[in-house]
């Protein structure tokens, strides 16, 4: 029911992101999502690839520090306030969202939200109860 995401530690200096994307690109790995949060000195690159297992192995072999994190993925209609409604659910239940990003795939009229929360089990249960469509890795 959860979506696997890879997290890579990256120093904040020129050429590092290229090294990562190129390492995967030349092996034919396709990104589904990618986001970067950074401070002055370092950042964490988070992404989902079409083939996460292979991406993990490739980056490991290339010397990156890679972690696997499980995210909650939900699908909502691509319309105003859809994201806010999901966030409101979490807030009402006092579930802290650590980070979140969303994207829309072409040819779809739905938007996908990926989030990492403090209490995943409780959040999943809550979302199910409210009839929100949850994503699995396959759906991506």
């Amino acid at each position: 029911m959860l979506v696997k995401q890879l997290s890579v530690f990256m120093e904040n200096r020129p050429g590092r992101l290229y090294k990562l994307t190129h390492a995967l690109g030349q092996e034919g790995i396709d990104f589904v999502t990618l986001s970067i949060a950074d401070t002055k000195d370092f950042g964490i690159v988070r992404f989902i690839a079409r083939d996460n297992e292979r991406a993990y192995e490739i980056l490991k072999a290339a010397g990156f520090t890679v972690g696997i994190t499980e995210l909650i993925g939900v699908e909502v209609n691509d319309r105003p306030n859809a994201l806010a409604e999901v966030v409101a659910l979490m807030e009402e239940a006092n579930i802290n969202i650590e980070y979140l990003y969303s994207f829309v795939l072409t040819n779809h009229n739905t938007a996908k939200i990926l989030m990492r929360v403090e209490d995943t089990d409780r959040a999943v249960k809550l979302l199910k109860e409210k009839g929100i469509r949850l994503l699995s890795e396959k759906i991506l």
Partner: protein
Amino acid sequence: MFSPEIEKIDRKALREMQLERLKHIVRYAYENVPMYKKRFDSIGLRPEHIRTLKDIEKIPYTTKDDLRENYPFGLFAVPMKKIIRLHASSGTTGKPIVGGYTRADLDNWSTCIARILTMAGATDEDIFQVSFGYGLFTGGFGLHYGIEKLGATVVPMSTGNTERQLMLMRDFGVTALIATPSYAMYLAETAKREGILQDLKVRLVCMGAEASTAEMHESLHKLFGAFPTENYGLTEVGGPGVAGECREKAGMHINEDMFYPEIVNMEKNEVLGEGEQGEMVLTTLLKEGMPILRYRTKDITSLTYEPCKCGRTLARMSRVVGRTDDMLIIRGVNVFPSQIESVLMGMDELGKMYEIIVDRVNYMDTLEVRVEVDDANLLTDYSKLEELVAKIRHKLRVVLQIDVKVKLVEPFSIQRTEGKVKRVKDLRKN
């Protein structure tokens, strides 16, 4: 001269005085400090075997490890009641090196400082700003009481708050500055930037606690229009005041009536002659609280016994050119790479690769520790990385007592070398 009877002493008379004091301090240490008794007894050495100054070579060296193993008061030769001051500096494993002073020790220490300041050109008319840290560090209080003994005015400023330092220097009409060379440079640069250099009356800059370079002296002279001098000392033998430069700037005059200097080639265990470079070994000749025999300073220098143009006959040591160990001096604080290593290796979440980068930015020493992140568990949550940085910084601060920049780097970004690993990169010039 503050003590002309000593500073211009005939060298033969000085040697006689030194021998008499050496005999006394050896017996005193033997009778009052268990470590010295044990050490002498184990090699069959008796105080009465010291009959000439050369006989000092029979005495085993005292090392920083000895001070550490006898932490805190094991090397004190008097009951605690007689100790009226304690000082401490950072040690190699977190335990500091402790010094204990009797009233007479403090008086002699002040005399040493008063002499050094006088030879640098100070008089009782000067207003001194002491920009050394006040506290356990020997620098602040050491200089403070020396200045009082000289009869000059003390502004006990301590460290930090550069803007305020400059304001008071200007408003109080400070004529003499006591600081580490790097901080003196920083003050001068800041004064220039703020446009208040012309309002300052600083004519003397007396620097200690870390080595300075000829270029720094030149820059300080240019900026402040002041006369810069360097002085030398270390906590283990009492603090600053062992030696200082006079107006000739031809080496630092050693207070030889209180410290007996030797230069030793440690590989050959051979005491070297005049002009030869080696490790300085110091014996305190008058210390009551904590007499130290043949302390290995690890500082590399050389001695000359030629009378100086200034009229002093006291031996002069050249500027310290290096160390026989890997000790770093960062903003006046002694730092051993082994201290940093013990902190890092004690943290399971860290890999085994690290690097220490020392640099000088705007004349201030910087210390950066780079650690490779190879624990994927740290990546689930961004704050874990920041907490890790904060935790390393805190632990290093506890041990080193200075702020360290901690940088997390990618695996394999620290250069691997075959054989002996070079953990420290010192990018400071000279």
